[in-house]
């Protein structure tokens, strides 16, 4: 290719400039650093599920904490992807301080990906064994069996027991479920099959899957709880196993549904600190703060989850009270999912479950 003197010089100049710029950019990327200045200011990076849930956390926990401790501010981001936590810890570049984490996951990777915690709280204010070595239970939630009251308007002939969920002859219709093992769907099926709630662990996986198999053709597995809520509000399913907050959201949106208070699974949501987080001590103080009764109550009022602190007395809306598995509305019994057991057995069972689901 022929080039005159001027263009050639221009090309050379441009090339040199480009090469220089690349090197400079690379150096800038490596050299940048933030966080941890010397004047006592702390920025906690807080990672949760986003949406209205995280907004509630900001209002109920973060803003009051900053009001009390003006030197502490928060950077909020989402989603709390555990793969990112693992990558940060493995590469030694941890930037997250507080991460919403499934309790079984924190317990499974305790001391390797998640830091062992030293959080000050009064154990008598919480149900026994609620918090783990590497997570605190920042709130509780329940998995509620509810049905469309348009389909079964008369309470006398509507579903009343968890056996009814699996009885497609007596109660024909579509069932909606999220395949989230941590919510207790296997335990629930076992109890419906006649296992005593005291004896669900260790879980007889085959028996639980056989139970789900019995209504396989009538079950719509939703990809996530948001998708299930959509199915419920657009009446694509007739009865469902759905977490409490989303039942409330459906009621608030005007959906006609009623809970079946027979056996309800309860779980906890976990919050953890990545191993090597920049501000672990401050993050632990914040954890102790959010576990207080008032903070817990405010979170429950704002988001429809349940407090983990037993002294907490949230004032719920009418719909919130109607669907509250932790309040007087629940006339059945509650069974708690065991995150520690799941931490030990998750990988194997989730693989087995996945195989069953995709057959």
């Amino acid at each position, binding site marked *: 290719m022929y080039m005159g*003197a001027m263009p*050639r010089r221009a*090309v*050379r100049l*441009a*090339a*040199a400039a*480009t*090469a220089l*710029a*690349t090197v400079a950019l*690379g150096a800038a990327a490596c050299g940048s650093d933030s966080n941890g200045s010397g004047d006592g200011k702390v920025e906690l990076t807080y990672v949760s599920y986003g949406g209205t849930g995280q907004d509630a956390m900001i209002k109920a926990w973060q803003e009051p904490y900053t009001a009390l401790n003006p030197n502490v501010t928060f950077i909020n981001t989402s989603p709390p*992807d*555990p*793969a990112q936590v*693992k*990558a940060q810890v493995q590469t030694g570049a941890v930037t997250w301080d507080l991460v919403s984490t499934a309790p079984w*996951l924190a317990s499974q*990777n305790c001391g390797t*990906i998640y830091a062992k915690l030293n959080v000050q709280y009064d154990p008598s204010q919480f149900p026994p064994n609620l918090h783990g070595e590497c997570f605190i239970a920042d709130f509780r939630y329940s998995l509620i069996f509810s049905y469309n009251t348009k389909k079964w308007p008369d309470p006398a002939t509507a579903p009343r027991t968890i056996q009814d969920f699996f009885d497609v002859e007596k109660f024909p219709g579509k069932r909606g479920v999220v*395949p989230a093992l941590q919510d207790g769907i296997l335990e629930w099926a076992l109890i419906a099959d006649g296992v005593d709630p005291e004896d669900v662990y260790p879980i007889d996986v085959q028996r639980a899957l056989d139970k789900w198999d019995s209504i396989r053709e009538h079950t*719509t*597995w*939703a*990809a996530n709880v948001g*998708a299930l809520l*959509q199915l419920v509000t*657009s009446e*694509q399913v007739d009865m469902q196993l759905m977490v409490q907050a989303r039942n409330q959201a459906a009621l608030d949106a005007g959906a006609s549904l009623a809970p079946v208070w027979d056996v309800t699974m309860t779980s906890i949501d976990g919050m953890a600190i990545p191993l090597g987080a920049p501000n672990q001590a401050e993050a632990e103080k914040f954890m102790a703060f959010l576990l207080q009764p008032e903070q817990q109550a405010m979170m429950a009022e704002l988001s429809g989850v349940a407090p983990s602190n037993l002294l907490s007395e949230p004032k719920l809306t009418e719909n919130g009270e109607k669907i509250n598995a932790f309040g007087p509305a629940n006339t059945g019994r509650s069974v708690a999912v065991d995150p520690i057991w799941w931490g030990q057995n998750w*990988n194997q069972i*989730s*693989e087995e479950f*996945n*195989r069953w*689901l*995709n*057959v």
Partner: protein
Amino acid sequence: MMTSRPRWLPHPGWLLLIPAVALLGGILGVPLWQSFWRSIGSGDWTLEHYSALFTDGVTLKVLARTGQAAAVVTIVTLLLGYPYAYLMTRVGPLWRSVLVVMVLMPFWTSALARNFGWLILLYDNGLVQRFLGLFGFDDVVLYGTAQGVTLAMSQVLLPFMVLPLFSALGGIDRKLLLAARSLGSPPLVAFWKVYFPLSRGGVVAGVILTFTLACGFYVTPALIGSPRESLIAQLLGQRTTQLLDFAGAGALGTLVLVVTLVLVWWANRMGGSMATIGVVAGQTGTRR
């Protein structure tokens, strides 16, 4: 007055490539290598992560399902796209613009909005189901099924088929058809023996693009499909974000990459031209 460059020194214009190479190497090459490195045991040489893929009872099934879905999407888009692209070469500039706008429309809406749109259309008692009901197909369930996902993916991927076809068909000399006719060939035979073989490059380019993109689809099957009928990208996501099994995910990713590359190589040998893909990728970007 020009200083002459030594023979061994490449032309300085090559320096302009440094940013692109650095960017690609940094954000694509290095992580890709790391995934692969982890999948073979990070130095402790092992193939267990690969053998696990073939024995866990899920991966092969999902891989086959993904291949099948991608193949159906490719065929559907080819059948819809070929006449469309042909029409684009036969109309005037105004109508051609209209047709281009129509086919590019999906790119101008957010992927999420588009998928939620399909969600509502595909629901039970939704528009699509009621429409099919008019013709007596009463219980076609599309939400949460592979069929529904295939339908939505076909719409999203149609431009990737139409554009390479259009650029190939536009370059065909129509006088050849006249020549065939004048030598006594009926129109259909002339099309099949003269026109279609000349369009093969565009067909193969479109097929490669559509198929490989379909293999990696995540949002559409996650929203419209069902966890019961996962495609490979969902399996990858699950392995990474739930099981934190980076080595296993690396193995799965490598397997998918190899399978895709082999298919592309094979299709390329069948007479496509990667240059056509380059042209199209430049025109459309590769957003999904």
